[in-house]
C-alpha cells in the first residue's frame, strides 16, 4: 500500500444553467473558491488532473489544454482522466494514486461540464459503438431505465411499491437540495407530482431524472507529510478506493445485480476494513441520476439485501435522519454537470467528514462513501473517506 492521502479542501461553482459565463471562467470559479477556502495558491501545487464527458458535449477536444490557464496549470505535470459518468471519481482516484505513489505531495483535481451548451443525450449516444447498439440505447435514460426495469422484475417487486419508493427518493432529494447552496434544481415536489410526471423512458418519469447542469468542482489532495507540514486537523483521509468495469456489450452481462458496482464497493470496503457498510458508514453520496437506479446501488453496495431497497427506502432508512443517509446534498438527481458530478460526490463526502457540509451536514459523520458510474452500463467507481487516518 502507498502512503496516506487526504482531501484538504473543496471548491464548487454555483451549478445550474450558467449561460452567464464562458466555460473556462466557470472552471476558474471553482478553482478560485478552492484556493480561497484553503489559503493555498497555485504555486504550491505539484500537478493537475481534470476530466469531462466526451468532447462532443461542448465541442472542444482535450479540455485540459483549453483550461490550462483557468486551472493555473502551466509549467506543471497535467493529466486528463475520462471514464464517462464515473469521470469525477476517476479524477479523484488519479489524484490519490499520484500522491500515494510518492510522486507528488499536493494535486489539484478538477471536474467540469457545461451541458447546456450542446445536446447531452446526442453526446451520450456517441459512447455506444456505431454499428449496432447506438441505434437503440436512447442516451443515458434509455439504458439505465432498462436496467432498473430488469432489476424490479428480477426480484418480483410490486410495481406500485417500487414506484412509491422512487417517488419518495425524488421528494426527499429535491427537499435536500434547498440545503445545498450549490445545487441546481430547487423545487418542492410531492409524491403525486413525481408519479404523474411525463414518461421519459419508462419507468423513469421527468422528476425521476437529473437535469442538464453547468458546473465545476475542484478538490485538493495532499500527502500525509503535507497535511502535517500545513498543520491541518480537519481533513478527509482516503480510506478506500475501488473501480470495476465490465464487458462492453449491453446484453452480455447481468445488469440487475450490477457486478461492477458490487466489485468496486468490495474493493473499497476491503481497503477501508469495512465489513458492515450500513452500520460503519455514516453517510453516502451515491451517484443517482435516476431514482430507480439509486435503489439498485443500495443493494449492490451491501446497504441492504437484494430486492430489499424499496421497503427500506419507504421506512426512511436512507433519508436524512435515517440509519444511513444517502445524498443529503440532493445528489446527482438535482445537480448533474457530468464531468464534475462524480468529483462532487467525493467532495460532498469529504465535507461531511470534515464537518463542513453546512445545512446538509449529517451530525458527527466520520466515514463517508462516494460513488459514480458510467459508460453503457459498464463502469463503477468508489472512494471512501474518513475523519481519522
Amino acid at each position, binding site marked *: 500500500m502507498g502512503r496516506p492521502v487526504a482531501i484538504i479542501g473543496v471548491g464548487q461553482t454555483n451549478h445550474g444553467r450558467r449561460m452567464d459565463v464562458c466555460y473556462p471562467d466557470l472552471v476558474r470559479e471553482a478553482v478560485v473558491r478552492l484556493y480561497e477556502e484553503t489559503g493555498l495558491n497555485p504555486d504550491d501545487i505539484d500537478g493537475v488532473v481534470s476530466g469531462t464527458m466526451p468532447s462532443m458535449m461542448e465541442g472542444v477536444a482535450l479540455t485540459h489544454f483549453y483550461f490550462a490557464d483557468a486551472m493555473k496549470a502551466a509549467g506543471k505535470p497535467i493529466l486528463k482522466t475520462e471514464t464517462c459518468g464515473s469521470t469525477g471519481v476517476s479524477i479523484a482516484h488519479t489524484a490519490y494514486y499520484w500522491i500515494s505513489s510518492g510522486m507528488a505531495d499536493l494535486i489539484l483535481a478538477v471536474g467540469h461540464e457545461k451541458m447546456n451548451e450542446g445536446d447531452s443525450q*446526442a453526446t451520450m449516444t456517441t459512447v455506444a459503438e456505431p454499428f449496432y447498439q447506438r441505434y*437503440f440505447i436512447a442516451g443515458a*435514460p434509455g439504458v439505465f431505465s432498462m436496467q432498473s426495469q430488469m432489476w424490479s422484475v428480477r426480484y418480483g417487486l410490486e410495481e406500485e411499491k417500487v414506484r412509491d419508493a422512487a417517488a419518495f427518493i425524488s421528494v426527499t432529494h429535491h427537499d435536500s437540495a434547498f440545503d445545498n447552496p450549490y445545487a441546481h434544481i430547487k423545487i418542492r415536489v410531492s409524491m403525486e407530482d413525481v408519479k404523474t410526471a*411525463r414518461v*421519459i423512458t419508462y419507468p423513469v418519469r421527468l422528476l425521476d431524472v437529473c437535469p442538464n447542469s453547468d458546473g465545476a468542482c475542484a478538490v485538493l489532495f495532499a500527502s500525509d507529510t503535507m497535511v502535517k507540514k500545513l498543520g491541518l486537523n480537519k481533513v478527509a483521509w482516503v480510506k478506500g478506493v475501488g473501480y470495476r468495469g465490465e464487458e462492453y456489450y449491453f446484453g452480455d452481462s447481468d445488469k440487475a445485480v450490477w457486478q461492477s458496482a458490487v466489485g468496486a464497493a468490495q474493493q473499497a470496503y476491503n481497503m477501508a476494513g469495512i465489513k458492515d457498510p450500513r452500520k460503519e458508514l455514516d453517510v453516502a453520496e451515491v451517484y443517482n441520476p435516476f431514482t430507480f437506479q439509486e435503489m439498485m446501488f443500495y443493494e449492490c453496495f451491501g446497504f441492504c439485501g437484494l430486492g430489499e431497497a424499496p421497503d427500506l427506502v419507504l421506512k426512511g432508512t436512507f433519508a436524512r435522519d435515517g440509519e444511513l443517509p444517502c445524498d443529503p446534498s440532493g445528489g446527482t438527481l438535482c445537480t448533474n454537470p457530468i464531468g464534475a458530478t462524480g468529483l462532487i460526490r467525493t467532495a460532498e463526502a469529504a465535507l461531511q467528514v470534515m464537518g463542513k457540509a453546512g445545512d446538509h451536514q449529517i451530525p458527527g459523520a466520520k466515514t463517508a462513501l462516494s460513488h459514480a458510474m458510467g459508460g453503457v452500463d459498464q463502469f463503477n467507481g468508489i472512494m471512501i473517506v474518513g475523519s481519522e487516518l
Partner: protein
Amino acid sequence: MAKEFKTIKTEIRLPYELAYGATWTKFFEGMENEIIYGTKCSKCGRVLVPARSFCPRCFVNTDEWVETAQEGTLTAWSYVNYSYFGQPIKPPFIGALIRLDETDVDFLHLIGGFDLSDFDLVRKTVKNGMRVKAVWSDERKGHVLDIKYFEPA
C-alpha cells in the same frame, strides 16, 4: 433582472468511413438475407449475438458461425418518449433486450408491431418473459434495422 450575455451558435460536422472488418461484414450480409448470425466460443461454449470475432470472457477467437433463432423472450425494456439531436429512430419506441432461443447473451433491438402512441396500453401489452419474433423489412440494406422490430409471437 440579470444582464443577458451573448452566445454564439456553432457546429462541427465530420465525415467518417468506419471499417466493419470480416465479422461484422458477414453479420450484416446475414441481415440482408434475413439471417441473424452469432458465433460460438470454443472454450466457454456460449453463443454470442451479434457475431463476434472473439469471446470477451475467454479472449479466444470465435470462428464457429451459428444461425440463431429469430424468436426469443423479452429480458428488459424501456418505452422511450423523448428526443435528441440526430436520434436515428423517432420516439416513441421501445428499446429491448431479447434473449434469442439457444443463445447466451441478450440481443438489443426494438419491440413493436402494435400501437405505441398510448403508454398505458403499451404497459398492458409488454411483459418481461413474453415471446417475441423478428419482423424483417422488405427493403434490406445489410443493416441492423433490416429487422424492423420484434413483435409479440
